[in-house]
């Protein structure tokens, strides 16, 4: 009797294993999420709903390892032949490295690409994601335009009734703040060589003047040099007058030690907990990056976008690619899914209609600080596309911006040195 029970159990297990294997072999795929709990929650939810509607698919959602970095995790997985079918958390610079290594699938060659772009209403936003060969290898998921926050309550106390828009106006306000022992800006990262910091201190201001003039094209510097010099000069002037502090002050902006700061939408959930008095329109206000007075009217008013998307890996089997592509198309076919994304992660989805689509209206009404981000999505420029992005931005910091902020080089000298260092990298 016992033997019979055991044999029955064994048979059942075998059938189950077989069933799972068949299912896995048919339409299964692994999808890696960013190592961020809220993003994991979203993708798990999406996979569950998708598989409920499409029981023939098996989408396994796993977080990618964070250490030593998500990029290193992806590289080692590809090198070891264990890459998933798709993953998110890819910015265009790293995407270029993967693209140069033939590791990605051109998404615009897959069935339903045009319909997907139309369904997600991102015909404009997708344009800046084209790779040098004209194909699209990354589907952008979210874009964080970097805006500047002003402490309007402190400006009022300083007797300033309008938010400064130009470098010259900022210098005047900074002087008033200094008289009250406040700093215009507190940013220790301004003198740190970490390459990604240049996104937030240099490229935000650079794009505001130059628009989307590419910083690098192919292996050549094609930057708007006048714009670079104007940005460097602005930082030089601020540093010379000691209006900016490059030492650490925890939460300098919400505590009111600094009156101006670059801000991404990721700060607001933390503020709600720790600084509930920080209310958009009452204590602070968000603006686009400033420009020099003489550029008023001609500057494009763009800003930098900290944006990431998803890719399909060429290494995955055709079946897995097809399965994950079906899943991705399903996820981005409904604006309600983008709403869930925004509710779960507080990151603005890449859509041309984010500010106007009624699906998002209620959520944005409850989170007014996110409205300026939604409105500026169209003006937000993603990082430049080059596989040596890290070296280039490190050189820009070490030879250019950092010596300028430390008053060790004139803006002209700093740009000449940075250009020489970048050219050396490009010619390597």
């Amino acid at each position, binding site marked *: 009797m016992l033997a019979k029970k055991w044999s029955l159990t064994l048979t059942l297990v075998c059938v189950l294993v077989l069933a799972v294997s068949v299912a896995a072999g048919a339409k299964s795929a692994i999808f890696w999420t960013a190592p961020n709990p809220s993003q994991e929650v979203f993708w798990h939810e999406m996979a569950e709903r998708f598989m409920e509607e499409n029981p023939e698919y098996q989408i396994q959602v796993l977080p990618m390892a964070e250490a030593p970095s998500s990029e290193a995790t992806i590289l080692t997985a590809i090198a070891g032949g264990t890459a998933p079918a798709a993953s998110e958390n890819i910015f265009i610079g790293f995407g270029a490295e993967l693209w*140069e*290594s033939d590791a990605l699938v051109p998404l615009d060659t897959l069935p339903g690409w045009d319909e997907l772009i139309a369904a997600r209403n991102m015909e404009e936003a997708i344009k800046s994601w084209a790779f040098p060969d004209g194909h699209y290898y990354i589907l952008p998921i979210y874009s964080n335009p970097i805006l500047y926050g002003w402490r309007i309550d402190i400006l009022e106390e300083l007797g300033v009734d309008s938010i400064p828009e130009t470098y010259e106006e900022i210098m005047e306000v900074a002087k008033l703040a200094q008289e009250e022992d406040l700093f215009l800006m507190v940013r220790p990262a301004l003198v740190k060589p970490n390459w990604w910091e240049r996104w937030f201190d240099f490229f935000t201001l650079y794009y505001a003047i130059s628009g989307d003039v590419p910083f690098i094209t192919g292996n050549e510097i094609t930057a708007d040099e006048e714009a670079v010099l104007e940005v460097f000069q602005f930082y030089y002037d601020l540093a010379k007058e000691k209006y900016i502090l490059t030492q650490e002050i925890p939460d300098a902006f919400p505590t009111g030690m600094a009156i101006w700061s670059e801000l991404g939408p990721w700060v607001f959930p933390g503020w709600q907990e720790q600084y509930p008095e920080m209310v958009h329109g009452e204590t602070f206000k968000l603006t686009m990056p400033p420009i020099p007075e003489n550029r008023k009217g001609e500057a494009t008013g763009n800003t930098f976008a900290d944006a990431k998307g998803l890719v399909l890996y060429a290494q995955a089997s055709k079946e897995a690619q097809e399965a994950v592509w079906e899943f991705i198309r399903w996820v981005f076919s409904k604006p309600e899914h983008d709403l869930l994304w925004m509710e779960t992660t507080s990151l603005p989805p890449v859509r041309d209609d984010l500010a106007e689509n009624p699906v998002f209206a209620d959520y944005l009404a409850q989170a007014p600080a996110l409205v300026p981000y939604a409105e500026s999505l169209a003006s937000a420029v993603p990082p430049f596309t080059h*596989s040596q992005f890290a070296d280039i931005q490190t050189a820009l910091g070490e030879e250019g911006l950092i010596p300028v902020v430390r008053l060790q080089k004139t803006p002209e000298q700093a740009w000449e040195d940075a250009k020489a260092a970048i050219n050396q990298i490009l010619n390597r």
Partner: protein
Amino acid sequence: MLRRIKGEALTGWLFVIPYLAYTIVFFVLPFVWGLLLIFSEWNLISPVREFVGLGNLIEALQSRRVHAAAVTPFKIMAIFLPAVLIMSLGIAVLINSFKKRQGLLAVAFFLPYLASGVSMSLVVKGVVSYTSPVNKVISNIIGYVPDWLGTPSLAILVIALMIAWRFSGYYALIFLSGLQSIPSELYEAAQIDGAGRIKSFFKITLPQLYPALYSVMILAVGLMFGVFTEPYMLTGGGPNLATHTWYLEIYYQAFSTLRAGYASSIALYNAVAVFIVVGIVRRIMQAWGRAHGWED
């Protein structure tokens, strides 16, 4: 007899195989792979793997980032070594002077070693921040707030002292075991001959601690060539590469610029530097030991 020897040999091999397998898989193979990578320009995934001969080694020799990384360990060492020796010896002597609860005290001083470098860096970041109580006191005295992490010499000081804080409890344990193995008769004889505490310390304690001191010196000097978390968290290697270390450069080249071959060549230089410096320190320590009656 032969069968017995064979049996013993087999048993020996069985004991050794796990360690050998571990060493081959996690040390020998990566080491050989790393050596092969040195001669290529490759990001680990590209179908194109360019053979560059000695190019990576030459480039590393000419890189100012590598030059900075080669100098930084010595700058940190100049502060770290005296600081950690004084602190750990002091802790060991203090613990040894207690008759009871030595274990509890030792654990208390050992705790910073167990704490993660990241969390310790955050604590230090708070301590040196512009508005910290420490800086308020200092600015009241000297009239300004020092830029601890933005001034090259101060940034080195902060990092060296932070590492010393972390490791002093660990090294104190080594010194403590050394202290406890010194025969008390030596101190009694010295006392009869009229030697005071300070003289006893330098003439008896320190020479008798030679084995412990030797271990600590080798560990501490080797540690200087593997510093990563503290500068990564606090300074990013700045200002002006003043705190840029070997591991920061290897990490940057391997995981930011994705140049595995170049990173391997820097790792090779790092290994050579450790080998040479530890060799020199070993010889100095052995000479000091011999001068105090210890044999090699």
